């Protein structure tokens, strides 16, 4: 039991922070929000690859650092501070999925490229409004040498910009039980139709409709014995993704509080900095208290999922606390920054929009509370 970071962990956080500060300024964030942007950020991407960020959680035999998934969470905390484009996140979640669900052949095919920064990827293996809902949205029909996928996927991150996408589908094979398989598919081509969704955060999400979209057998995740992916593995992947997202939210929360505190120290009204007013200080204190609760619970969730545990309880709690901490911090920061922080020329709204989006992504506080109730046996 030790809730402090090791020297290596502190160092990693500092490196990541300075990398994002340098390579992911808000000017980049703004550019990626523009209509028609593909959401890619080549310079940042290259810097992350060079710094070895993509390899952190993966085994050395695939080129990774084998440094542990929790360490990846530390990087995402810093990514959240800087509003790092979501393609980094969707790629890493894909990687974690392949590493957990794939056999050596698929891992060898994807992970080395991913580690080197040559692969951009995403995933759609849970209900984007409820990460505990793992029911596949696609059906898979058996054909020669492969499968035909059909169905509709909503809110697929970066679907139109990535090289590969991990999806799940329910198989339909004569005289066999229905199974959940994973499929690694390339966006585009026959049977692929995608529409960009316009969200509050102007991020890259799409609705994807597949119609008899062909996937060859060598890109299918069938589970260890071919009888389908274990629900536990899919749950672990979803929970790992939520935990990493919570780490992002923690970083975002810390960032807006710090920016706002800095503003209150220089903004003067009634002849004194507004940061000297007790009402302002108490709003800041309340944000800090919520941040600490979010940070500790997110850290716990990232640590346990990083150890390979499903950790439903820890993840549910983290999502509940991070959702509210981040959202209310941005709204309260608007209050403290007033008109100054409310115009599009200033940056606060970039975090505010992201906070609302991530609150809803994977599950609202109400939804996460249901996970916790289920885990406690209340339902």
């Amino acid at each position, binding site marked *: 039991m030790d809730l402090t970071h090791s020297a290596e962990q502190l160092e990693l956080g500092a490196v990541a922070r300075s990398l994002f500060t340098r390579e992911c300024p808000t000017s980049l964030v703004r550019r990626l929000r523009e209509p028609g942007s593909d959401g890619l950020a080549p310079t940042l991407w290259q810097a992350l690859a060079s710094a070895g960020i993509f390899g952190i959680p993966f085994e050395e035999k695939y080129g990774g650092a084998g440094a542990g998934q929790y360490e990846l969470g530390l990087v995402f905390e810093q990514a959240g501070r800087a509003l790092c484009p979501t393609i980094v996140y969707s790629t890493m979640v894909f990687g974690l999925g392949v590493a957990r669900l794939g056999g050596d052949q698929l891992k060898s095919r994807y992970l080395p490229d991913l580690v080197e920064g040559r692969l951009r990827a995403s995933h759609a293996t849970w209900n984007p409004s409820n990460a505990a809902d793992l029911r596949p949205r696609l059906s898979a029909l058996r054909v020669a040498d492969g499968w035909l996928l059909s169905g509709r996927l909503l809110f697929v991150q970066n679907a139109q910009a990535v090289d590969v996408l991990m999806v799940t589908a329910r198989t339909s094979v004569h005289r066999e039980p229905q199974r959940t398989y994973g499929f690694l598919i390339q966006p585009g081509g026959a049977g692929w139709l995608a529409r960009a969704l316009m969200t509050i955060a102007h991020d890259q999400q799409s609705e994807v409709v597949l119609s008899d979209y062909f996937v060859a057998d060598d890109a299918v995740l069938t589970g260890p014995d071919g009888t389908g992916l274990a629900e536990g593995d899919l749950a672990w992947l979803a929970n790992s993704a939520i935990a990493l997202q919570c780490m992002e939210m923690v970083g975002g929360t810390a960032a807006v509080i710090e920016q706002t505190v800095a503003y209150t120290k220089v903004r003067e009204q009634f002849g004194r900095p507004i940061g000297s007013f007790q009402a302002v200080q108490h709003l800041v204190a309340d944000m800090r208290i919520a941040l600490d609760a979010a940070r500790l619970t997110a850290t716990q969730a990232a640590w346990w999922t990083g150890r390979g545990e499903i950790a439903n309880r820890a993840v549910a709690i983290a999502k509940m606390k991070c959702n509210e901490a981040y959202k209310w911090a941005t709204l309260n920061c608007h209050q403290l920054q007033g008109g100054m922080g*409310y115009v599009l020329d200033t940056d606060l709204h970039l975090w505010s929009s992201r906070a609302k989006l991530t609150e809803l992504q994977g599950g609202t506080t109400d939804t996460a509370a249901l996970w916790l109730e289920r885990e406690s046996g209340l339902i």
Partner: protein
Amino acid sequence: MNFELDAAQSVWRDEVRAFLRENVTPELLAEVGEHRTTLLGGEVAAFRKKIGAKGWFGLNWPAEFGGMGLGPIYQHILMDEFEYWGVQGPDLTVTSVAPMIMRHGTQQNREQFLPPIARGEVRYAVGYSEPNAGTDLASLKTRAELDGEEWVINGSKIWNSQAHVATHEWLCVRTDPEAPKHRGISVIIVPIDTPGVEVRPLITWADYRTNETFFTDVRVPRTNLIGQLNEGWQYITGALSLERGALTNAGDFRRHVDELKELVRLPLEDGTRPVDNAEVRRAIAQLDADVEAAVLMGLEAASLLEIGEMPTITVTVAKVFTSELRQRIADVGTRIFGLAGALSTADPAAPAAGRYEKLYRNAPLMRFGAGTNEVLRDVIAQRGYTMPRLGR
């Protein structure tokens, strides 16, 4: 005490409703939604003209100024209905600026400025805040100096909403820089097209356009001074009170809650209905109860005005309560539809056409605008309970 509309009030409400049912068209609402537009186009202008024709811009003015002489309850009913329908009725020009001219203006002020307002020919922007004088309004620095028969104005105003569509500016200026900060402030009316006035857009997170307005050697007649020289502070604090009062009708809140009750019955993407979730029902019930309280606060303020009392505490309480409630309505409206709640007005699949996503971005304004809630809480404690004022 009477919670029921009397016969005449009912007739009035029905008349307003009938007017709105007939004249609030989808085209009008579409144009209202376009906050970025530099000039409001034909639909809004035509709608304003119809309101003018009904005489409703002067509904609460005394008959001597060409008004209908209707009391605050009638005004409240009208504003409430307009808000419910999502369109602007009588704006600050008639609810706030004109009453101040009537109350504090000279006879010449009244004769000159009121008739065009009554006819709906003019529209005022209200110039209070400056970059370093927001909450601390009395620190304003824009100067007006008398040069013969003209005021020469230099300075700038910020958060100058509507300036890009206004014909006139109701401008607060410093006319005596030597006086203590609350003295030495005056109000001068400046036609927006006067040389030296420059309006630059500021676009907010809600896509709502406000402005920064610059005044460089702007010259207006000496007679554009409202009321007495250096007495402006009391005029504008009076106007702010009326403005806050006008914010509390909560007709739009009632509309949101009514709409949410309907929307949650529709199935989501995954076939479930939000209304089948107890948390969703409870969130709506909570909003419903709070909106009811907000509605009553507005009615109480109107009732107090009706019997000649200035409802300072009531409108201050209502402003704090409603602005924070608006944020909660927006939050609920964006979180009960799953991730689809993040879809914006730009997305055809957005629940409620993205209205709650937009409201979410809009809501922060009312919490810090028109007097930050922090200062207003001080006011509630200090004026409502005579708590000691000691350096905040």
